[in-house]
């Protein structure tokens, strides 16, 4: 924050007023592993843009608030950003509950809002002011459903999901879409993010006649599940969620990670992307790795897409809130990390199932599963 303040004083001369942008992420708390790369990405991209002369000569002043994965904090953070800092647009939050808590706030004061959370409700009506860059759970789930019914051709599967928002939303969607694809969900088990052992849930699933187990959650539990399945000698396929699209899963699960398949953004296997999107992904990976000495994950990608879409719209429409909102809504063919975005009046998600791929872990490496 200090750094950005200094910029304001530096730019009081003949340059234009800076654009103030606010972001709310879960940099700490249970969603910290998701929010932190988002925060890092936002900082990095804004620095890049400012170095390149900003947006039409306006520097970007970025204010990031950490909601500690708690929606109560998210609501006050939004107010702080809008009312105290005077930001013209909001990015965030990381988790669905936080985002849902922010949604009425931004709508009330009519500030364009780009979310990075996956829950379906995020962009459900009323959604005049909110957009998102994360693949909606609907897309990830559809990807998995397609994989199960078309590639694996199974009839029965079981769900093991985190009891948090991410897991619950995924499980609900899976259950909703299975019958349509001619499949039956024979078991739904949940766990708490911190649980130390999942053999009990898996034992139940083992007895349910499931042909596949779909695990919907973020680290470390899916890794524990993979290990526990090995322990219980369960040989049915393990299909994960995009929540395990990071190196951490492979490290934690070790050999048990082999053969695990999950939906993910193309950033995981850059080769799966093509053309301009591939260039963007490659550059992002290179920049991020250079700056932070570790590779970006798909969550970092959500932040990348959010800030870039916003900047594009700012370039087009300036800072007037109505105009900015319309400009975001008119985003077409934006080559983002998570996919190629085409927003529209009735589509504030902008992505399609084809923006995701199924990834398989082989010998500790990600490969695209065709």
């Amino acid at each position, binding site marked *: 924050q200090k750094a950005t303040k200094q910029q304001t004083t530096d730019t009081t001369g003949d340059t234009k007023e800076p654009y103030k942008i606010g972001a709310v992420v879960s940099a*700490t708390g249970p969603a910290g*592993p998701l929010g932190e790369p988002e925060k890092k990405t936002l900082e990095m991209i804004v620095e890049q843009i400012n170095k390149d002369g900003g947006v039409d000569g306006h520097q970007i002043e970025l204010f990031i608030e950490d909601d500690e994965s708690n929606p109560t904090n998210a609501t006050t953070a939004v107010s702080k950003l809008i009312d105290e800092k005077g930001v013209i647009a909001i990015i965030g939050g990381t988790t669905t509950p936080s985002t849902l808590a922010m949604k009425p706030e931004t709508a009330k004061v009519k500030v364009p809002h780009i979310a990075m959370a996956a829950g379906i409700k995020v962009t459900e009506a009323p959604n005049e002011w909110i957009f998102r860059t994360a693949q909606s759970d609907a897309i990830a789930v559809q990807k998995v459903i397609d994989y199960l019914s078309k590639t694996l051709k199974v009839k029965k599967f079981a769900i093991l999901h985190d009891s948090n928002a991410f897991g619950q939303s995924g499980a609900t969607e899976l259950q909703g879409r299975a019958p349509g694809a001619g499949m039956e969900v024979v078991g739904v088990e949940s766990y708490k993010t911190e649980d130390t052992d999942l053999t009990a849930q898996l034992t139940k699933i083992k007895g349910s006649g499931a042909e596949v187990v779909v695990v919907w959650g973020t*680290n*470390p539990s899916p890794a*524990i599940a993979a290990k526990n399945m090995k322990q*219980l000698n369960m040989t049915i396929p393990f299909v994960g969620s995009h929540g395990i699209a990071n190196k951490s899963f492979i490290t934690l699960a070790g050999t048990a990670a082999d053969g695990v398949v999950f939906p993910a953004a193309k950033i995981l296997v850059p080769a799966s992307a093509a053309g301009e999107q591939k260039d963007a992904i490659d550059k992002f990976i290179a920049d991020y790795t250079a700056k932070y000495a570790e590779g970006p994950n798909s969550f970092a990608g959500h932040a990348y897409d959010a800030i870039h879409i916003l900047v594009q719209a700012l370039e087009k429409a300036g800072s007037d809130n109505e105009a900015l909102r319309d400009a975001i809504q008119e985003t077409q063919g934006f080559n983002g990390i998570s996919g190629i975005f085409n927003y529209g009046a009735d589509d504030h998600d902008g992505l399609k199932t084809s923006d995701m791929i199924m990834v398989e872990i082989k010998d500790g490496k990600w490969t695209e599963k065709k």
Partner: protein
Amino acid sequence: MQFDQLLQFIISGITSGSIYALIALGFTLIYNSTQVINLAQGEFVVYGGLIAVSLYAGAGLPLFAAVLLSIIIVTLIGVVFERLAIRPLINHSIMTLIIVTVGASILFKNIAMIIWGRDPLTIPAFSGDDPIMFFGASIIPQSIWVFGITMVTVVLLQLFYKKTITGKAMKACSINQTAAKLMGINSSSIVLLSFALSAAFGAIAGVLIAPISMVSYSMGGFLGLKGFAGAVLGGLGNPIGAVVGGILLGILESLSIGFIASGYKDAVAFLILLLVLFLRPSGILGARIKEKV
């Protein structure tokens, strides 16, 4: 329900239950010298695991050396914590001390986040990952380590309290500091000892579960909660109670996954805990203290 399935539920329960039990033992130690519930106990567990990860994966020490050194370091952390934050307040209300441990848990947790980052980490199991079959149910060797060490510790601890004068002196300190002083007990070093041991127990739990459940900076609160619940269920201050309570809690959770619904497993476990408390207000093995008026 088939037998092997039921057995697997029980074994799963014992696996997590032994972890809770080991943590509950840490609570017991500090409770028995100060009547304080150390809400930073889970942080000792986390530090045990994380430091072991750093020493093993980072510094490249052999596994057992890393584990041992980690336990020693955490013990020292416990000692420093006691000297700086507990000692000055030892004559004040228990509530004040508990809030100090709340502060410590917040502090420790977030320092861990800065040092080790937000992602969970792990170390290899002590004796491999190949499960052992037992009447159709399977156990991983690491769980046997946890269970075995829990059993050994509880026996040692029980002997310590029953047979040694230091063990009795420790309880004396928690009951009445002035009287303990009048007996010539150096309560300061006794309390220090209890914090050192308790930190060590926490670290042991941490290194033991790092291969099973991974460790991340944020796990302390959850583990502490389960340990506390186990200690209370069994009866505070009683090491055997702590183990009984911890393991029972684990089994209750896993059976409620098996017979009720996994989403409600904690609710069921806590509900039974409440019922037990309402029937036995001092836990399963806790002594009902009555003072004469």
